[in-house]
């Protein structure tokens, strides 16, 4: 019979201990965690970046990823977007009664593998069990260090800067929606840690003014927020925004717009105009960046305005995502 999580796993007693050792510690395995102290004591730096994120995705496993990979990528990428070097993660798991232990093992294994890829250690954790119907939720807090003179921030875009994205838009969102709605497609989630890409850009001395991972709300929402933060006008070229034909068809079918759909392994970068070409080459040669493109520019214009030049020569003024991005009906 399949092993499932029950309330006893949340008791704090023997069953909890066994679960933690068997499922979590075995995978995360590092000196700090192995001490099993009440808090992890780690080496630091003078400027610390901290972020936290909770992952509640359904289904827990999806095409191209799972909640374990996702909860590392999401948090690590948030650190990277401030120019931080990700160092440590925590793992707070909330398990519903009835959760499959095998599935939990798979996602925790995936979490550990992704953490290794991203070069971070998972040094602290917690597990709780609640009533429910087999759900798995994970919160990760990430800690990184920021070199002394590094200043990458959402308000730093300057007129003349160039806007790039590291790849195709909407893949993660489309993958999750297709699973939820039982639509046959092989669209894969793009969940990926972007450390190598960001590291390559910074190592090459690219003047990176702003980085933002293009997650919930999609590209338009993210860029609208950045335009407002910088007090500049952003102008995008519709035809330059990369979207795979499959995602485009999927969106067409459901009435969704790829520029309002989330990714979990794509970033938008705003860089000095003179560095744009180099930046594009570097991203394209980095892992997860082969479809990168220059999609627009920063202008003085009307502060906070985001406008897209459409393929047929029209202009479309864009705002943040409204509502939930539900598929339309016909």
């Amino acid at each position, binding site marked *: 019979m399949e092993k499932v999580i029950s309330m006893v796993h949340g008791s704090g007693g023997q069953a909890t201990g066994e679960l933690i050792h068997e499922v979590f510690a075995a995978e995360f395995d590092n000196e700090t965690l192995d001490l099993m102290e009440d808090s992890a004591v780690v080496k630091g730096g003078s400027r610390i970046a901290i972020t936290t994120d909770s992952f509640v995705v359904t289904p827990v496993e999806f095409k191209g990823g799972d909640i374990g990979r996702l909860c590392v990528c999401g948090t690590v990428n948030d650190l990277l977007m401030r120019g931080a070097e990700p160092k440590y993660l925590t793992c707070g798991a909330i398990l519903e009664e009835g959760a499959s232990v095998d599935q939990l093992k798979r996602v925790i294994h995936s979490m550990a593998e992704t953490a290794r890829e991203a070069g971070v250690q998972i040094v602290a954790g917690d597990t709780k069990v609640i009533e429910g119907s087999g759900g798995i939720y994970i919160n990760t807090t990430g800690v990184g260090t920021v070199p002394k003179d590094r200043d990458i921030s959402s308000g730093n875009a300057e007129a003349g800067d160039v806007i790039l994205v590291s790849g195709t838009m909407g893949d993660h969102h489309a993958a999750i929606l297709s699973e*939820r*709605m*039982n*639509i046959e497609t092989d669209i894969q989630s793009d969940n990926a840690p972007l450390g190598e890409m960001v590291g390559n850009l910074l190592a090459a001395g690219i003047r990176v003014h702003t980085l933002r991972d293009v997650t919930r709300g999609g590209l338009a929402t993210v860029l609208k927020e950045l335009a407002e933060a910088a007090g500049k006008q952003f102008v995008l070229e519709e035809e330059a925004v990369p979207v795979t034909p499959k995602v485009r068809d999927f969106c067409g079918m*459901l*009435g*969704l*717009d790829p520029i309002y759909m989330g990714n979990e392994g794509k970033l938008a970068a705003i860089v000095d105009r003179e560095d744009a070409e180099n930046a594009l080459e570097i991203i394209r040669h980095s892992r997860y960046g082969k479809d990168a493109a220059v999609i627009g520019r920063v202008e003085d214009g009307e502060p906070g305005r985001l406008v*897209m*030049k*459409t*393929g*047929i*020569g*029209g*202009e*479309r*003024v*864009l*705002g943040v995502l*409204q*509502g939930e991005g*539900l*598929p*339309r*009906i*016909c």
Partner: protein
Amino acid sequence: MVTLEEIKEYLKSYDGPEINIMEVCGSHTAAIAKNGIPGILSPWIHLLSGPGCPVCVTPSSYVDKLLELAMEPGNVIVTFGDLLRVPGSTPVNLSQIKGKGARVEMVYSPLDMVPLAKNEPDKTFIFAAVGFETTTPAYALLIDTLIRDQIQNVKLLTALKTMPEVIDHLCANGAPIDAFLAPGHVSVITGYECFEPIARQYRIPFGVAGFKGQELLAAIYGIVKLVGQGRVVNFYPSVVSRQGNAAAQKLIDQYFERADVAWRGLGVVKGSGKLLKDEYSRFDAGSRGLVEDHKANRACCCDKVLMGKMKPTECPLFGKVCTPMTPQGACMVSTEGSCFTWLTNHRTQ
């Protein structure tokens, strides 16, 4: 052959009499905004959004009935996404009562009901079957499958509408329209022949249009040149024919019959919808007689917007009380609703 550049140049520099063009398809409304088409046109050419978004034209009594069914134990409401947030005669919607324990499932195709219903034979699955001619064949196919597989626990609450009759209704009731962009997807099923009598009677040109920017511009150009002439021109010949899809029409006619149905804001329009035939009434969750239509907010101008008598931006609630997060009328809910697309694309003309 006219080039795209020539078409754009003509439409931009047009300075003849003012022209109101109505698109009667929600997907056209969305595509027009996404392509930034209003900015390509002369200020003398106005694009109005008609009653072409199925969610927008569903009367409040339908939503009320759906909410009532959702609260009955043992019922599961199955719907397409858009309908979740449409208010009935009160601001309450499906999404909110879902939070209070009602079971509401979202699917992509009506046929997705079949495995759901088979898995839980003790539940009654009620499909919120809204739509136009485009979607009706899928519901007919569902009934076909239910009969074949002897599935007893699925019912439909229908709000099925037909386009030609409502367009006729608009023309007969003084909607200020000089030309129509005829709905591309609907025409695939119906063929464009059904618009010809209306075009002739009111001397209004119809252009059947596709959904790409170029296709829309070509159709707009075509009908601007035909204003005053009662002609139907097919600018979407790759998929639309004069007679339409006979097999789909036959399937619809097998299970559904023509009926007088209510449209949000427009009232009951003669012969403008479909209801399940009497012999299939066992599949009907109570769709007949849903004609009451009350505004959740009395100041809501959805009716005037749907008739082309008012721009969304002229409604006093637009963008203030009524937003996609707090929709007061159905046109602000659907991603194809005229108010939603005007607001989210910052459209002003």
